């Protein structure tokens, strides 16, 4: 058993889990073309969930705040993105691929900016007074969630909103028997880009160093004379912006969105954060990829138990590692 563990760790440890999952699925599915399509779908879904989960996890890691309103940020991002896409219909529906992409990127950017602003407001007004008090934090962010959801309903109404998809991103790549939706490739690329950006900022810059230090030991960073509250607000805004971005991407993926989008995604986001370990970006990525793959494979093999399978995955991982796979904080 010990040898087995050591070998497992040497070949990448928990990072191997998605690979193992993919191999098991390959055996069960049996048809390579289907398997490739499902894997691509799973990776794309994982990347979008990663966008939403990373913000939550980062905010928790640094500020020790679990933001239950996070799902409202996702919904807000989705609706803002959809609205901007609606305004830019001429660009989006046109045949010029550059304008298509620019339009979509603008929608995502506007969603991110709005998300960041909402985050700023939230941190200042709602969360700041209750730092350090978990019970009141949970309560107050649930209160914030109620208010934010109601405001979204007030602005956009309860009816489902169709989201135009850029011309260039419709359809699929077809290679032999394998077909992969273009939007999924785009989603995967953007997610990977964001991960790379986060990695570079956190691991290669001074601000990133401070954030990581703050996750590790907040009092020490404060004692060394850094204004941790400014870091807090920055991270909170960034986390909210990421959530809104994920929401906007998801809106484009779904094509039709309702106000309950955020709440539905939140279940998966929570599972991802729990699996990955609170506070770690790498953990969120790992968890998101696992959940995305699991959802797609099981969705194909037996659709009824798709969500249940992720729950079982979470339970199994909690039994094995109660703190998640790659936790950054052990408080």
């Amino acid at each position, binding site marked *: 058993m010990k040898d087995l563990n050591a070998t497992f760790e040497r070949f990448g440890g928990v990072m191997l889990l998605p690979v193992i999952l993919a191999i098991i699925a390959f055996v069960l599915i049996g048809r390579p073309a289907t398997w490739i399509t499902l894997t691509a779908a799973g990776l794309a879904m994982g990347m979008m969930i990663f966008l939403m989960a990373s913000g939550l996890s980062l905010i928790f890691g640094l500020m020790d705040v*679990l933001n239950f309103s996070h799902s409202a940020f996702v919904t807000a991002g989705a609706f803002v993105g959809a609205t901007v896409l609606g305004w830019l219909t001429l660009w989006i529906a046109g045949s010029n691929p550059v304008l298509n992409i620019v339009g979509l990127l603008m929608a995502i950017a506007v969603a991110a900016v709005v998300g960041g602003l909402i985050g700023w407001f939230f941190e200042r007004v709602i969360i700041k007074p209750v730092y350090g008090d978990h*019970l009141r934090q949970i309560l107050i962010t649930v*209160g914030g969630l109620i208010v934010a959801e*109601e405001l979204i309903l007030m602005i956009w109404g309860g009816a489902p909103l169709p989201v135009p998809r850029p011309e260039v991103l419709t359809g699929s790549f077809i290679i032999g028997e394998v077909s992969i939706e273009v939007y999924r490739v785009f989603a995967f690329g953007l997610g990977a880009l964001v991960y790379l950006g986060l990695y570079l900022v956190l691991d290669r810059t001074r601000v990133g160093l401070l954030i990581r230090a703050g996750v590790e030991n907040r009092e020490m960073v404060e004692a060394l004379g850094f204004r941790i509250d400014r870091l807090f607000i920055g991270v909170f805004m960034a986390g909210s912006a990421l959530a809104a971005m994920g929401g906007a991407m998801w809106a484009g993926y779904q094509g039709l969105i309702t106000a309950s989008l955020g709440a539905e995604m939140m*279940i998966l986001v929570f*599972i991802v*954060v729990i699996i990955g370990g*609170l506070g770690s970006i790498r953990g969120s990525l790992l968890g998101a990829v696992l959940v995305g793959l699991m959802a797609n494979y099981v969705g194909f093999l037996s659709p009824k138990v798709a969500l249940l399978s992720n729950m079982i995955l*979470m*339970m199994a991982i909690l039994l094995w590692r109660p703190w998640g796979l790659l936790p950054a904080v052990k408080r």
Partner: protein
Amino acid sequence: MSLAVEQTGAPRQLPMGRLLVYGTVGLIALALLFAPFLFPDVRSQEVAARICVFIVLAASFDLLIGYTGIVSFAHTMFFGLGAYGTAIALKQFGASFTSIALGGGAGVLAALVLAALIGLLSLRVKAIFFAMVTLAAASVMLVLASQLSEFTGGEDGLTYSIPRLFSPATELIADAEGKAVKLFGVALNGKIALYYFVFSSSLALFAVMLRIVASPLGRVLKAIRENEMRAEAIGYRVVGYRTAVFCIAAVIAALAGILRAVWLKYTGPEVALSFDIMIDILLIVVIGGMGTMWGAVIGVVLMTLASYYLKDLMALGAEATASIPLLPDLLNPDRWLLWLGVGFILLVYFFPSGLVGTLMDRDARAGK
């Protein structure tokens, strides 16, 4: 010394806050006791029965959040297990008390097992982690209920009949002509029997919870809430106690679910499992006051009144401000939850112990 000060100090004030709380609770209890005679119309009886069940549900949630400091989002899951167990049994085996006992018993047992599992698995970690795990579990249960539609009726839910004793056509005391005897103008039929079944069961469950809170177990729970490390150091197994209270609360919630299922003759995701109910319970307990059983009672009544009358008030406001931009939208009766949410946030800021807690605290301070 301190004794002397107390005796020679200012004359003891009447504990106004405490009296107010007990008076209100007494009034509510009386109103519920005589509800079928005081408010004979159908809608009021629905409200009264809903209040009875929700007092039990909110109080059992308060055992967790207020007395032990555990935040669980799975409370409606247990409520739903009780309700669905009863509903499925009544649907499959016909309308009899045996079905209620069997189905309800199965639901309660399922709630107990699930609570023990979740508790042992995740109560040893942080409060926040636990909140997330319960939220995930509850969401899965909601999805399961809508997917296993051959048992649960899916989104439409289940409609079924209940034992004949509880039907409005049954006379409890028949007069010479075979009609139900009237008392204060209200026919003594099965509906009354059903209401008093719900009322007395709720009362009994509430009494059990009052007993638990006053027992040594209740004291340990409060100790855990105040200082976990210290409780552990004194020699109490914190995880064990937390799991125990989580199981107790789950069982009581499942029992409340049975009452709800029997009263409504209908069980569906909307009335037994949805997150709206969870949010309702949370609002009730926080508004009423965490850590006091009476808070749950007053919170339920306030929330119920708010959900019926705040909407009317807002409709009036929306009409009055129809010419101003934005305001009518904000005052649209559908947005009543918005104002409740704002009120909730303000309450958590300024009166974290809720209405009842604040009133009682004031006495404690005035008494010193």
